[in-house]
């Protein structure tokens, strides 16, 4: 179970959000919505330990997580809005790198996982290309495959289907549903209503469910 209590974030003197409270049960699929610039990505980055919060608590399975922004370990898998693929590695290497380095899988095991994921996401033909040789939607899907390959317990997607055509979106929905069956907790920041309707158990609306402005 993941609990977020009274979380707040300030940039400079601008309060992005405050008083954010949210509880997510294991295996839930939560969609996070809200207008552009409201703080959705910021929240995901805090959750992943990439950005410090200014107040509040993150509690994962009754253990409090460090919110200072330099937490170690990858409790939350993230698919970034701008992908952050590693340019010097091929698609396959991008996907197999972490399982080998972190999970100490053999090259063969990692390859098997990567092949399956990349096929599911329709990237068979791109496995040996480098990121600069990919289309926008292909990068998007590689980023998804890379995060999935680590089989994280919690997975956060930042606009996973932005720029994806209907067919590719279908594939992503299928993946999310499969993971849900496997009990993976998933947080999906999206403006894509059909996607949210197709997969989400609950919706968190940044436009109405957090406080903004004023002081901390």
């Amino acid at each position, binding site marked *: 179970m993941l609990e977020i209590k009274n979380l707040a974030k300030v940039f400079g003197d601008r309060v992005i959000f405050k008083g954010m409270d949210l509880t997510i049960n294991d295996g839930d699929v939560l969609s996070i919505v809200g207008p552009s610039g409201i703080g959705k990505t910021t929240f995901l*980055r805090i959750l*992943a*330990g*990439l950005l410090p919060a200014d107040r509040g608590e993150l509690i994962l399975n009754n253990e409090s997580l460090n919110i200072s922004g330099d937490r*170690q*370990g*990858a409790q*939350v*898998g*993230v698919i*970034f809005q*701008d992908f*952050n*693929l*590693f*340019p*010097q590695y091929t698609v396959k290497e991008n996907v197999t*790198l*972490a399982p080998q*380095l*972190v999970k100490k899988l053999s090259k063969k095991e990692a390859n098997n996982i990567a092949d399956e994921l990349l096929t599911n996401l329709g990237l068979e033909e791109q496995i040996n290309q*480098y*990121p*600069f040789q990919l289309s926008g939607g292909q990068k998007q899907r590689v980023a998804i495959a*890379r*995060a999935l390959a*680590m089989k994280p317990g919690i997975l956060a997607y930042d606009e996973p289907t932005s720029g994806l055509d209907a067919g590719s979106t279908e594939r992503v929905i299928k993946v999310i549903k499969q993971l849900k069956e496997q009990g993976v907790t998933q947080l999906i920041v999206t403006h894509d209503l059909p996607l949210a309707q197709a997969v989400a158990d609950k919706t968190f609306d940044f436009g109405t469910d957090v406080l903004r402005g004023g002081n901390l």
Partner: protein
Amino acid sequence: MDYIIQILPSILSGLKMTIGVFVLTLIGSVPLGILVSLALRSDIYLLKWVMNAYVWIMRGTPLLLQIVFVYYGLSLANIMTLPRFEAAVVTFILNYAAYFAEIFRGGIQSIPDGQYDGAKVLGLSKFQTMRKIVLPQVFKIVMPSMGNEVVNLVKDSSLVYVIGLGDLMRAGNIAASRDVTLVPYLLVGLVYLVLIALATIIQRRTESKLNYYR
């Protein structure tokens, strides 16, 4: 021409010394430079301060003086007596590491934050992130600047004369003053030019190899 063939053996044995100093310095100073560059970016104030001082001293004082200090100074002060060659190589490594550290620091700074983020959420350790994600990209960026220092290193290697090591330049000096001719200097100069051309070509090759991605 005959004369050149006559002095060639001694020039070549000088070349061996020059290349020895060059190669060992590179092997030692690049990794050390990476470590120092990381320390320069560290959050630990004291470490950062010490490393800044190190870079300042190493770049601020003449390499020649540093060699003299390590070889004569340390033994005068009864701290340590290094053999000549080792003393030279150690000093060169310490000196060049400071220059390389600055170059790497710049390279590391210019890697987008997203790369660190990407590595972190995958659970890579800081070491793995550096080793597998950041440094490969840094090398691509800093190659040309490193080339400058490599070229300087080829030339600076002649400073080992000061502690009596028989390098290329000294071989030239000896032949020139023995035979009262400038030919050995020309020959030595040519060898340096060739060495530097080689270094430059290897640098450009490596660069274009690293150009497989953008």
